[in-house]
């Protein structure tokens, strides 16, 4: 993975010293809250319901074991012994004291981590496919490009005060696992007919109160033009994006109001002026960054298939886990392992300090020192020999992280919601816990098959509810929590925004409603191979509405 050079080290260290001074001046009263708030936000420090929250950047979701151990240390020393992985591939601590934050940042800097640009109207952490560098279907590893974007965008003077926050995602296979079409810029790596690498460029996607699917404005952008074209997009946005209304300030609104063709023309005009400037990426520079992401040397382990077959025959739990939590690796002796952070009844994305240490140890022992964070709030060991799977599984069982539910109905995304978040209107986590508990039976989950439930506690949509096959949005109505359900959303290469199915459900009704939706799908699917989303797209909302509201609609 990428290692800091001298410049990076000096830069992060200077930033820690600067923030230490700012915190001291705030605590002594030299700075007012109004003066301090933008400074703390630039360093990832929010104030939530119960405490401060610190959001730590995990660039493109790639973590080394020593970094995971440091997160465990911070969780134990300064927090309540756990952390929360987010849909932005970041980690949040929900209980740090402001006075401790400078020391936390210093600890993070010692393992090449920081909280810069995890808040504010700047270019946020660039996200990527969590199977990057390992997936068999990959055209190229998206992370070198994400790293180039990270270096270019860090404290970029022109783009530090954009109209609103700006999120870029890069994916490297035909199957989009980074939800690029719901980002401000989505980059989909591909090769042209001559075998050159480049990107399909999507602009203006986003969730929140106005969900929009991004528009493709370039079918093929050669890799050397990455920064000049991105700069062109950001210049158009920075100039024309609305600053008069926070809710209309994202680039999705600009794209929508300007029209895709006109916006594309504006971007192309800027690009024409930048194309041959110093922003053009020299091949040598791309290769230098590429080298940091060279895959580990994977020794041949042909004994894996036999070992897995024997172990699976003897251990049904292991067999179930193999069936759900593996992803096909480029090297047939290896696989990518999803470590589910969605234990039944647990908090989606939460992990204890002891579990963090144990995952770090697994990555060192069996995973070539690599850990990934997925936007679905799980962890991934991207390179594990099939021959080592049983050992990895046994250890995961011992630490309570062997839930065999990747992609199933209990693998639920949920934002922190009203249990922590100052913006939330309703709780998300207890809803996820109750649904997971209802569908806990492994056989039933597997019978239902692939089904993504995503829950947000407010319209800002951190829980990506718009792109859930079943999306749940918590709102406040007459002082109580109410959950609005959307169906048919999807955040992949065939992105769709879910349709609101009807009136909302109270906290004591929502799990029943989800069960009704699932049972309706099971009754209507053509066969077991027709996944929920396919059935929904074939039939539309009608049978689900009928099942949820039919009786009361007829009675009315």
């Amino acid at each position, binding site marked *: 993975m990428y290692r800091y050079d001298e410049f990076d080290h000096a830069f992060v260290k200077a930033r820690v010293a600067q923030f230490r001074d700012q915190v001291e001046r705030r605590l*002594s009263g030299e700075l007012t809250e109004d003066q301090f708030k933008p400074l703390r936000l630039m360093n990832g420090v929010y104030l939530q319901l119960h405490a401060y929250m610190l959001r730590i950047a995990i660039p493109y979701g790639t973590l080394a074991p020593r970094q995971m151990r440091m997160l465990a240390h911070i969780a134990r020393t300064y927090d309540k012994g756990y952390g929360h992985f987010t849909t932005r591939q970041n980690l949040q601590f929900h209980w740090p004291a402001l006075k401790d934050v400078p020391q936390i940042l210093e600890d993070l800097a010692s393992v090449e981590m920081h909280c810069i640009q995890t808040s504010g109207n700047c270019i946020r952490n660039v996200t990527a496919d969590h199977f990057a560098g390992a997936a068999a279907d990959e055209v190229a590893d998206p992370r070198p490009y994400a790293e180039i974007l990270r270096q270019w965008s860090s404290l970029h003077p022109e783009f530090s005060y954009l109209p609103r926050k700006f999120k870029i995602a890069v994916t490297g296979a035909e199957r989009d696992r980074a939800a690029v079409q719901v980002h401000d810029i989505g980059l989909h790596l591909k090769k042209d007919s001559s075998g050159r690498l480049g990107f399909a460029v999507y602009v203006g996607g986003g969730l929140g109160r106005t969900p929009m699917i991004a528009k493709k404005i370039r079918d093929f952008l050669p890799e050397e033009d990455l920064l000049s074209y991105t700069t062109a997009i950001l210049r158009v946005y920075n100039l024309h994006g609305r600053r008069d209304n926070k809710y209309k300030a994202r680039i999705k609104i600009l794209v929508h109001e300007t029209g895709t063709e006109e916006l594309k023309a504006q971007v192309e005009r800027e690009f024409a002026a930048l194309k041959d400037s110093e922003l053009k990426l020299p091949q040598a520079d791309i290769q230098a960054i590429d080298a940091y992401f060279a895959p580990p040397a994977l020794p041949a382990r042909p004994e894996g298939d036999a070992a897995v077959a024997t172990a699976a025959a003897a251990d049904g739990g292991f067999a179930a886990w193999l069936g759900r939590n593996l992803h096909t690796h480029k090297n047939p002796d290896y696989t990518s392992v999803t470590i589910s952070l969605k234990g039944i009844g647990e908090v989606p994305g939460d992990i204890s300090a002891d579990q963090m240490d144990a995952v770090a140890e697994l990555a060192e022992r069996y995973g070539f020192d690599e850990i990934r964070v997925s936007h679905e709030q799980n962890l991934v060991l991207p390179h594990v020999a099939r021959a080592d799977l049983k050992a990895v599984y046994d250890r995961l069982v011992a630490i309570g992280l062997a839930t065999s539910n990747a992609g199933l109905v209990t693998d639920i995304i949920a934002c922190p919601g009203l249990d922590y978040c100052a913006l939330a209107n309703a709780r998300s986590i207890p809803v996820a816990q109750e649904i997971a508990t209802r569908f806990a039976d492994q056989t039933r989950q597997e019978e239902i098959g692939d089904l993504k439930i995503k829950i947000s506690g407010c319209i800002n949509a951190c829980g990506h509810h718009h792109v859930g096959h079943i999306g749940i949005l918590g709102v406040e109505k007459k*002082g*109580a929590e109410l959950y609005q359900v959307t169906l048919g959303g999807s955040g992949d290469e065939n992105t769709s925004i879910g349709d609101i199915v009807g009136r909302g459900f109270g906290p004591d009704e929502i799990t029943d409603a989800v069960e009704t939706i699932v049972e309706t799908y099971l009754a209507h699917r053509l066969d077991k191979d027709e996944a929920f989303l396919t059935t929904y797209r074939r039939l539309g909302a009608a049978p689900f509405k009928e099942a949820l509201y039919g009786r009361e609609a007829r009675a009315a």
Partner: protein
Amino acid sequence: MKLLTANRLSDGEAVWLAAGGRWVEDIAQAEVARDAETEARLEETGRAAAARNEVVDVNLIDVEFVDGAVRPIRLRERIRAGGPTIHPELGKQARRPALAPV
């Protein structure tokens, strides 16, 4: 009925204003304002505490009495008082289970 709440500057802990201008971590000890005059006094005390950099995010919130105990009207404020409704083994939700917000 109202009372005044804020977050302590140094650690972000949710606090409520008690008699004598003290900030307490237990909402049960907070001073309840039953008239506009008391509300104004609480607010003035809060403004002064914010100006002294003791607290941030100072707000008056609506409360009621249920079974003799003070209880915020809004769920958000009940969760601030009782702690998250998850991880019952940790934090203030473990220390004060009686304040469970729901």
